[in-house]
């Protein structure tokens, strides 16, 4: 794991699936493009070890949350594209809700720094 922002490993691991599902909910994509998009969105602060994305994608596919299809890429080579399935959208909705709960709680705490706990 190479991480400029030194995010905790647990945080990176927990956010991987929601990130993948969110990106795929915007349209089909493939491994390399997903990595580039996450880098771009996070301003290079989330940098995955590229190869470790694939076991995550394969597990999501095995769970029936995403599906894959081989298509011809512009390079002339076959490329595996992933798209989100109904179960994936449901998992994403659940993840969003959970992340919002954490986000709201932290925002409340951090917006009132003088309140003692």
């Amino acid at each position, binding site marked *: 794991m190479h991480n400029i922002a030194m995010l905790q*490993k647990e945080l990176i691991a927990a956010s991987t699936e929601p990130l993948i599902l969110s990106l795929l909910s915007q349209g089909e994509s493939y491994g*390399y493009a997903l990595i580039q998009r996450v880098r771009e969105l996070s301003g290079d602060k989330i940098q995955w070890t590229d*190869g470790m*994305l694939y*076991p995550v994608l*394969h*597990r999501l596919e*095995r769970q029936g949350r995403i599906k894959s299809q081989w298509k011809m890429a512009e390079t002339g080579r076959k*490329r595996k594209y992933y798209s989100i399935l109904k179960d994936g959208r449901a998992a994403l909705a659940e993840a969003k809700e959970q992340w919002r709960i954490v986000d709201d709680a932290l925002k409340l705490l951090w917006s009132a720094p003088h309140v003692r706990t």
Partner: protein
Amino acid sequence: MFELETAINQWRRQIESAWRRDAAAMAELEDHLREEFAALVHAGHAEEDAWRLATVKFGDPTAIAGELAKVHRLSTADRAVLVVMVGAALSVIGVLGWVLRGVDSSLTSQPLLASHVVTITLGYVAGLLAAVAAAYAIMRTLVRPASTAALQHATLAVVRSASVAASGLSLVGFVLGAVWAQDEWGRAFSADPKEIGALFVIIAFASLAIVAWRRPASTRMPLAIAACGGGLVLAAWFGAASMTADGAALLQAIGFGGLALSLGLAALALAIIDRRCDAPLERRAPLP
């Protein structure tokens, strides 16, 4: 002088030393590396430098292969089904051999005929095993399309071995039968339904063995051929035997009808149990 193809082959070997199950997954990883390499070269890196950077960013091949192996591990339920199928096939061979030996004394007095019956029985049971395993994998894929990649590859391994056994043993049995017929009836081949059926079985499973041993990227075709091959075995055995009013043939027909039914029911029951009991894979995500 840096050679991209050589470098990719070396890198592939590193992954394959830890995990070599899925040609499609390898192609996907390779596609990623090629794209990263091209992007780095485009950004001005020398080829050798670009390859080194791309592989460092990609991560340790052994660790990635280990994670892929975990994801694609065959579920306990599927392993149990395959073991039960092989066990059932072996048990039926034993029971059938015992029944045939007890009922038809002509088999023990004619070693050549007995060898023919035993060999062709083994060949047909191997064919039925391939068919039932393939039918199970197809059924699981239809019922629940997700999480069947590992099962399909494991089934293909069973089909590969079983199709070689089915075609090889049926061929030997066919030849032994021809030699016996030459001695007894004065002609090796009479084009009767049993012989024609056996020829079809031999051709079908020999073709399947060739397709399955080529390690195809898609398991669909070999599994479909194997499932159809089972129908052919049943038709050859049950159909042809019931057309002749011969006691031993009828016994064989009953034995194989029962075998097919029991294996089919076992596979169906276990598929239902598997579907109900297989817990969703909610293991903690590996770190990307």
